[in-house]
């Protein structure tokens, strides 16, 4: 991978609005994140909105110690993914930057940061809230469109080929229980999930 081995302390290369590609393989260096921050970018209400959402209640307790980043398994191998930075951007109200940031999608949800935060901030849950909000705005990596539509059509996240199902019988495994796509559609409609998926497909 010939990615720019720049100084890891450099400002993370985020805000890749158009860069939300699945299987990008590497983090593309973008310029927008390093662009100077303009005063009108700050949304003072953003941190309050996030703290009102389930899992974001402790956001404002963050004192930027950086435990989340130093203990993050992904940050070790990424030049740009820094959970502390995502939290800081959220607290500052850099809403558009954080929601369009490509690194938002690099959290593996291992919950090490959540378990180790000395201020009890549910870091991984805050990142989940940011992702959910980004999706509402139409940013969704391809992989989630695939997983989501498979769940709606089959009940499970991966489409299991017929060959696999036949093989189950051959090796003496009981048949796989049938899914209930009708129930999936109803629940997706009730929660608003189907709307989000459609928006993602159009984007």
């Amino acid at each position: 991978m010939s990615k720019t081995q720049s100084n890891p302390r450099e400002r993370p290369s985020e805000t890749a609005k158009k860069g939300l590609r699945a299987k990008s393989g590497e983090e593309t260096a973008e310029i927008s994140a390093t662009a100077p921050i303009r005063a009108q970018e700050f949304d003072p209400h953003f941190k309050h909105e996030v703290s009102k959402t389930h899992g974001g209640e402790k956001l404002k307790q963050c004192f930027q110690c950086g435990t989340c980043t130093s203990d993050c398994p992904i940050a070790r191998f990424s030049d740009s993914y820094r959970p502390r930075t995502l939290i800081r951007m959220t607290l500052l109200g850099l809403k558009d930057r954080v929601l369009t940031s490509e690194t938002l999608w690099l959290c593996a949800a291992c919950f090490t940061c959540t378990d180790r935060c000395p201020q009890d901030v549910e870091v991984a849950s805050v990142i989940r809230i940011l992702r959910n909000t980004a999706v509402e705005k139409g940013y969704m990596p391809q992989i989630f469109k695939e997983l989501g539509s498979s769940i709606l059509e089959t009940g499970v996240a991966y489409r299991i080929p017929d060959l696999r199902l036949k093989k189950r019988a051959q090796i003496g495994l009981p048949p796989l229980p049938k899914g209930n796509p009708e129930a999936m559609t109803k629940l997706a409609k009730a929660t608003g999930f189907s709307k989000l998926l459609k928006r993602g497909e159009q984007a």
Partner: protein
Amino acid sequence: MTAPEKNAKTTPKPTRFLLFLGCAIPYRVSSYEISTRKVLQQLGIELVEMPEYNCCGLPIDPVNHSMTLTLAARNLCLAEQQGLSIIALCPGCAGTLRKVNKKLKENKELKEEINGYLKATGLEFKGTIEAKHVLQLLVEDVGLEKIKASVKTPLTRLKVSEHAGCHVTRPADSVDFENPEDPQALKDLVEATGAEYVEYVDKLACCGAPIAGVNDRIPLQLTKEKLTHIRNAGAHAMVTVCPFCHMMFDTNQPRIERLFNETLRIPVLHYPQLLGLAMGFSPEELALKALRVDATQIVSRISGKEDAS
């Protein structure tokens, strides 16, 4: 272990559970299912197929948290209808089901919200059952003593390392199983087979699998790092209890070797395969052939037939 043993005498432990297979296991990791069924049957655990189950919800948590909670809750409702607790083989499924079960039991407001969504399908979450990962079932419901007693051929010649997978214990508050900073369950279970347990640096670190769909380089680097540490620690093999971790360590191992120019050749067994070998099941019965990294050396070593090559 005195307190749980006392409890065991007063209330008999359940032995019948609903099997929650999830998405990844029937899709790609049947060997985990095959070996788990064999081993649990031997230990007197009866598994009931779970009708019309759906994805636990975790894969789409980044898209819409409400849908994740609702999908998990639907599974819990189906189990409530059967009056049986759930055993999941995938830590992602187990963690999500446990977390949602706990949150809905504790948070009335959230329960009402999710029940509002479930109403469309005629279901209602009541909070009458439990959900567990198979690892938790083995240490809590079956018990180490019974597992040790089931071992016919102690694997004393084998050095085994492990990677349990994050969601078996994290986030600690909601999964509510064992201390994620010093987990014991899988260590105890490896030792119960008679094998020597091998510690290594960064044992608790994530394998990176969850972001493989967005970035394939970082997960491979993470897994390579861990495999290298396991090799350097002198393990003959390692075990996992997660289909995604298994794909990273086993399925991707040849790719990692090529990409990073490393020689690893570390067989990665599903824990039930290791226990099954100790119980006396044949490698065929445990689907050892389905592993990408050849495990015949392990089988030879157990039977004392390994040669110097």
